[in-house]
């Protein structure tokens, strides 16, 4: 496909949107600006929150006015730069990756409930993680010794990617990917992968079972700069496809045939969208474990506020996803301090009731 055909695909979509949602573009821009400000504010506030008593305002003052950073204790420095800052970065990356992937997949599948689970990412990642935890001491022993702390994220990432690629292959025939087949095959494949995971879980001892439970609930506590480097690279590369995807997904919302006639290379867009979201969420889930509901709640909320135009929805989802995850992480680390709650609990605690409310509200609208 040439760039010209994308341009062709862009034009009619734009005009349609202008007609349908007159002032929404302005509103969307305003919302995005506010989200940027909110993100900066939330970042600064959460950097100052934690189990340890570290005053960042005091640290900043010392640094600015005494002219040197020597007055800052090494412990405070370590907590800020090696613990809280990596968590902030990781929270941003993962929140953005999960929310954007949710938004992309919901558009692609034209299914409001689509999340990374639908393309096999969650099942694949948990198979990789469970295999590392259970077989790390025996079957995968040499692999684990070589990769050390990275063995789990690496296995989870490749597990996620492999299942997604397999699913994509199953659903593609004669160069065409059937979305319906992908959905149905996804359910079957997920059940099969979960069964294999189940066998591994059965083999696990009680300590490994504990580890599995905690992995499933997710946490940003293991944030290190090296993990951020690895997962951040994958997530940012996947995000590079978003400007291309945004326009094409807008066209796809009129149906595959219409999008094709608008000049969108539908097959290519499907492949790119599936690969990009699988890589981004795979990388996210691999380092943080299972974090639910961000991918569903964030895009839905924003669609209500700024409409379904993916050119605004995708960046806004990234920002709100990041804000939500950073806030959830702040709650996770102070609520039972000095111990810590898994972050997946917090996102589900906020996400599930909110989702229900959204559902009921929508039904109410339909009835009235």
């Amino acid at each position, binding site marked *: 496909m040439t760039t010209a055909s994308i341009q062709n695909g862009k034009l009619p979509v734009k005009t349609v949107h202008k007609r349908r949602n007159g002032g929404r573009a302005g509103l969307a821009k305003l919302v995005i600006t506010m989200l940027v400000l909110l993100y900066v504010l939330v970042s600064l506030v959460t950097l100052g929150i934690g189990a340890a008593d570290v005053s960042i305002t005091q640290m900043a003052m010392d640094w600015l006015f005494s002219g040197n950073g020597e007055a800052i204790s*090494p412990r405070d420095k*370590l907590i800020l730069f090696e613990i809280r800052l990596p968590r902030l970065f990781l929270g941003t990356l993962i929140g953005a990756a999960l929310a954007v992937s949710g938004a992309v997949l919901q558009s692609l599948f034209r299914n409001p409930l689509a999340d990374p689970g639908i393309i096999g990412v969650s099942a694949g990642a948990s198979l990789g993680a469970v295999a590392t935890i259970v077989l790390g001491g025996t079957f995968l022993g040499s692999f684990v010794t070589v990769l050390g702390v990275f063995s789990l994220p690496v296995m989870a990432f490749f597990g996620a990617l492999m299942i997604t690629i397999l699913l994509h292959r199953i659903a593609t025939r004669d160069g065409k990917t059937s979305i319906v087949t992908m959905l149905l095959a996804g359910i079957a494949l997920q059940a099969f992968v979960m069964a294999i995971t189940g066998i591994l879980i059965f083999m696990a001892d009680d300590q490994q079972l*504990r580890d599995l439970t905690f992995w499933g609930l997710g946490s940003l*506590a*293991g944030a290190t700069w090296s993990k951020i480097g690895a997962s951040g690279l994958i997530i940012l590369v996947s995000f590079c496809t978003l400007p291309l995807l945004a326009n094409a997904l807008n066209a796809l919302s009129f149906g595959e045939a219409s999008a094709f006639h608008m000049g969108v290379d539908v097959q290519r867009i499907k492949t790119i969208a599936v690969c990009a979201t699988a890589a981004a969420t795979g990388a996210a889930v691999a380092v943080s474990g299972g974090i639910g509901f961000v991918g569903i709640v964030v895009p839905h909320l924003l669609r209500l506020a700024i409409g379904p135009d993916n050119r605004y929805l995708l960046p806004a989802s990234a920002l709100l996803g990041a804000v939500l995850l950073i806030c959830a992480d702040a709650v996770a680390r102070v609520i039972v301090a000095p*111990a810590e709650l898994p972050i997946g609990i917090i996102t589900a605690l906020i996400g599930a009731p909110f989702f229900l409310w959204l559902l009921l509200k929508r039904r109410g609208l339909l009835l009235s």
Partner: protein
Amino acid sequence: MNVIKQRANHSRLLSLGNDLIAYCMLLLLSAIVATGAANRVMADEARPYERVVTIGGSLTEIVYALGEQERLAGRDTTSVYPQAVFGVPDVGYIRQLSPEGVLSVNPDLILALEGAGPPETIDTLKEAGLSIITVPERYTADNIIEKIKAVGEALGVSQKAEALAEETQERLDLALGANGQDGSERKVLFVLSLRSGKVLAAGNSTAANSMIGLAGAENAITGFDGYKQVSDEAVITAQPDVVLMMNSRGNHSGSDTEILTHPAIVSTPAGKNGHLVRMDGLFLLGFGPRTADAIGELKSSFDKLGR
């Protein structure tokens, strides 16, 4: 030592010890305001570690048994004995520690059982200049003595630890030496819980398996490692003479009647005779200073049941 506790008023200086790389010393520069402006510098060199976090229930118990609880700055979720330990901040579950949570109690030493983690947290804590001493965990009587000596050495109270180790060894020998009334070994089924009617039993390489062995009995179910759900048939085939359980905290593990009327257990000797023994979880499975008592208690409750 009250002075040291008033952390807020003190400025701290973290300095690396130069003689031994493993030892890092936290010098507390304490400013004591006495009517005028008299400042005094305090440094305690006789006891290198003043703020200790113990990770693992048995280690915490040993610290109390050594009378060194004043130096406890934190403990993990599995440390639930003695009662006073609930006044010490809980820094999280042994396998799921968060670096900031541990650092927030200002420790200078982490005393951890083997398997404490995750590794990322341990790395960050090492980077923070904390000493981390790991104590191996095996479910044997010797391991208890090993733990006591390791804790004593880490806290610089080796002599006290030696005395405790000796005394514990004596009690262990006594408990292990006291033979049951009859020579034949009883078969004991350890039930971790009875979840929706399924028996979750202890297999090989578990603390429960070792305790049953130390009490002179035999684990009724072998053939797998760890705690696993076993089928009703397997329970009936095992023919346990006694069912051993932990005291239920909450009601999740089933009431006594529920256990003894369980369709599989009811047809075994244990079910027919109503032989159910319950003990506190950490007491029974902790492999700490109280294990000798636990062995003794287990033996005598087996004996009391008769045949």
